[in-house]
């Protein structure tokens, strides 16, 4: 294989991604939850059902749990795992900022330098941004989380 193609491939399939794919964290639907959403990627058929539980912790609205059930490729599955692990326990406001940071990274066509302090294992997805067809895979569960969280906040008003 030529160096550039194999380098790009290795950049896409980071060890962290393959690890999360084989051993996903926080997977499985759990109670309690305020909102459940179902998102699909119509082009490839990847699906995620995702629940969000928000709770007031010392006066701060916090992501108490994110649980999900999903089918799809390594990128979409690993992304759900990384996201759940990153966001559970974070204040909603901070979680939204992490979401924004991940979105910027994914939409940056490979030009955005990821911030490891914010994204932790999420920086492994930097290589995905160079593969336009796979960006939607990486974003599937993140978009589902944002949707579910917005619904949860509506519910709690």
């Amino acid at each position, binding site marked *: *294989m*030529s*160096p*550039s*193609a*194999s380098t*790009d*491939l290795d950049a*896409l*399939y980071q060890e962290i991604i*393959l690890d999360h794919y084989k051993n996903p964290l926080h997977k499985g639907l759990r109670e309690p939850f305020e909102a459940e959403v179902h998102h699909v990627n119509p*082009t*490839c*058929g*990847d*699906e995620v059902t995702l629940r969000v539980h928000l709770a007031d912790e010392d006066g701060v609205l916090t992501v108490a749990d994110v649980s999900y059930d999903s*089918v*799809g*490729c*390594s*990128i979409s*599955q690993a992304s759900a795992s990384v996201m759940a692990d990153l966001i559970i326990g974070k204040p909603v406001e901070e979680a939204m900022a992490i979401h924004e940071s991940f979105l910027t990274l994914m939409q940056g066509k490979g030009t955005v330098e990821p911030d490891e302090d914010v994204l932790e294992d999420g920086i492994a997805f930097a290589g995905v941004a160079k*593969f336009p067809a*796979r960006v939607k*895979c990486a974003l599937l569960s993140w978009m589902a989380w944002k949707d579910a969280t917005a619904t949860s906040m509506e519910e709690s008003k």
Partner: protein
Amino acid sequence: MSRELTGVLPELEVIRKDFPILSRTVSGGHPLVYLDSANTSQKPQVVIDTMVDHLERHNANVARAMHQLGAEASEAFEDARDKVAAFIKAPSRDEVVFTKNATEALNLVANTFAWAEGELSIGAGDEVLITEMEHHSNIVPWQLLTQRKGATLRWFGLTDDGRLDLSNIDELINERTKVVSLTWVSNMLGTINPVAEIARRAHEVGAIVVVDASQAAPQLPVDVVASGADLLAFTGHKVVGPTGIGVLWGRKSLLDQLPPFHGGGEMIETVTMERSTYAKAPHRFEAGTPPIVEAVGLGAAVDYLTHIGLENIHLHEQAITGYALEGLATIPGLTVLGPLDATQRGGAISFEIDGVHPHDIAQVLDARGVAVRAGHHCAKPAHARFGVQSSTRMSSYLYTTPAEIDALVEGLEYTRSYFKLD
């Protein structure tokens, strides 16, 4: 290693030189191994040149312009209709309607049925029969029709080996059946369906038979009358022609019975402010400026295929498909969805590999220059039937070599090692 295969086109290397794109490299220097021809086929130089020549020398609108270029353009466009009619052995050139693609052709049929009056009208109590292996373009238009008209949509199920389950055909085809619409060759399973036999049964109860020949026209000799179809659709870009042009063939008497589809220029006899009268087929269904250069390109494309011979192309596809099935069988954990006998199927093979998602397979193959399709191939119900969300599909064509199949098989071995499945 590839060996001499019986049935492979003898002038394969010459044929490959007709397709300029096949000589390019991709993914950082890999020779292109294009195994996505069921998605769209590549184009020979003669199609490209014919279209360029038309645009450079003969461009004008058709059937309207009273000048030399208009006459030349009209002649080229109508010549293409003659070529397509010959390609599918249509009894009359007037039975060949140019559409945008097969999807539009099928929607034309389903919509005009929705508007039809008299014996063609469809309503409550009537049934439309399709199959579980259809492309979405031969499912959704019929769902829309039956929902709008209060009719019932029914379908043939599939056997475990990917064939139509005909065990309940006597019940499914009955006096309420108004339309039977089915694919000739499955784009996902590769299955070749017994279209003529089903058509015979459908005609016994007076049903209209619609055949989606999108995957058949590229690789089987098509004789529309022998097929048993009343209406038959295919698309240009899968028969080495350009995108933007499709074909609906219909029995003349049936086409003349169907109401118009799009209203506009060129589909009328006369127009007053109150009402219009309509042209006969094919022009009745060709409102507006048609895809002219695309039709001209399609004419060159079907001439090219005819020159090589559809029988020869079919044998080539069978040889390559058989060789691919043998190669795929050597990959641990690989399951082919569809019939395993190459003589009973077309040149699209969908498969799964335990432990690797189709998207990831396609990505690793792409990095080695091997182009396949991953996903549901617009056949979600067929995937659901086999309990899978998506699959990887390789599809060959007249320019595919045994060595390219070797590259696929090696790529799949590499994919398994890349994802540490051994």
